[in-house]
């Protein structure tokens, strides 16, 4: 059956309403627009980076309803009604989150391209388990690629943030 006979069209425009970093946002998109492109182009939130655009680098990771998701592997229309948290939502009133501060202090980035993805992935991990082991941190980060640091400083920054928020466990 032809598309138009069923009221379908490949250039239909969809209204997207969602919450981004606690604010109601909306836009009008083609179905094929990814959440990443919607955030960057329609909402001007360019902190979410696009490396590979097919799910393998993790640079575009955001939280959707509290869970980490590749925003290049999600359509904006799929996110209708969701609560999305991006890198722009981590700092509160201009103050870095303790994880951000700790990664800053430990030189956890060089060019910074991968950093938003790493921060969102670790934010998700710490929400699910606030006191992970280094092994669990490495496992959680295994889906994020960094071309600069060699990862050691990233793990160090994350472990330092965990130690400072779980003071009893510092030995």
């Amino acid at each position, binding site marked *: *059956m032809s*598309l138009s006979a*069923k009221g*379908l*069209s*490949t*250039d*239909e425009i*969809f209204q997207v309403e969602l919450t981004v970093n606690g604010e109601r946002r909306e836009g009008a998109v*083609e*179905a*094929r627009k*990814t959440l990443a*492109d919607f955030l960057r182009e329609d909402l001007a939130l360019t902190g979410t980076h696009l490396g*590979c*655009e*097919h*799910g393998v680098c*993790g640079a575009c*990771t955001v939280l*959707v309803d509290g*869970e*980490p*998701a*590749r925003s*290049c*592997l*999600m*359509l904006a*229309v*799929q996110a209708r009604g969701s609560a999305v948290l991006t890198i722009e939502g981590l700092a509160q009133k201009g103050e870095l989150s303790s994880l951000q501060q700790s990664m800053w202090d430990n030189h956890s980035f060089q060019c910074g391209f991968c950093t938003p993805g790493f921060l969102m*992935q670790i934010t*998700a*991990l710490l929400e699910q388990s606030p006191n992970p082991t280094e092994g669990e941190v490495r*496992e*959680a980060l*295994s*889906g*994020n690629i960094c071309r600069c640091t060699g990862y050691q400083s990233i793990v160090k920054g994350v472990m330092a943030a965990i130690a400072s928020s779980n003071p009893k466990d510092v030995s």
Partner: protein
Amino acid sequence: MKPPAFAYRAPESLQEALSLLADHGDEAKVLAGGQSLIPLLSLRLARPTVLVDLARIPGMASISESDGWLVMGSMVREGHAERAPLVGRLAPLLSAALPFIGHPAIRSRGTVGGSLAHADPAAELPAVALATDAQLVATSAARGKRTLPAADFFRGFFETALETDEILTEIRLPPLSEGTGVCFQEVARRHGDFAMVGLAASVRLANGTIADAHLALTGVAPQPIRASEAELALIGASPTKAVFEEAGQLATRGLTPPSDLHGSSGYRTVVAQVLVRRALRVAALKAGADYEELDSGRGDLR
């Protein structure tokens, strides 16, 4: 790297989704978690005209127990299944395999049904479905429901028994018999990569001998395969190193695994043999086999 244009619907009932598929045949594709389909769109390896998003249909992501069976809607997210205590209790082999899939951000969106329907030759869940004798329920507008044993579901390279107007709606895993131990193992280049070779194994012991064994390999053929010859040879045998070693040989007899830049066919064959040996050992120990008896004899089986 942008998807081509397509029409999109996110129906709120299964009926509506099925009728969209019935109307558009192979022009339409189901969108589940999108973790395989959206990369294919972006790389322009798939060009469906209509995407039918299942995420807004109520009830398709439920996990429940029925007469000891684990019953899951096909839209259960991989990460949700991984953390669900009911899955751990009723289907430990599934729980063991889930963490091997990609990364947390993939599993939070990817679905159990999507992984089975996609039928990647190196995916973990098809091997689990095969090893556990899972039943897969396919639903269409024209013919209603039909239940397929996993053994009939996987037909080849990215190919299943699903017709273009069908949706995989439910996955049912049978209860484990008393005295069964399970183990999932795989070897991949990096954590989170698709397996070069993976193995889902279960062993049931009765009075110290092997009463039943299930072995399903992934990554060694266009579709997951049961190592039936090895399984048969194991029945009635004692769980020992030599027996498991022999099972490894039998499991790869007649197989020609694919060669690629990650590993040659010969390498994959050896890896499959080692995984069979290792997984059988772990599964037998979990089923209550005697540590010393099992580890006596030559060779390092760890």
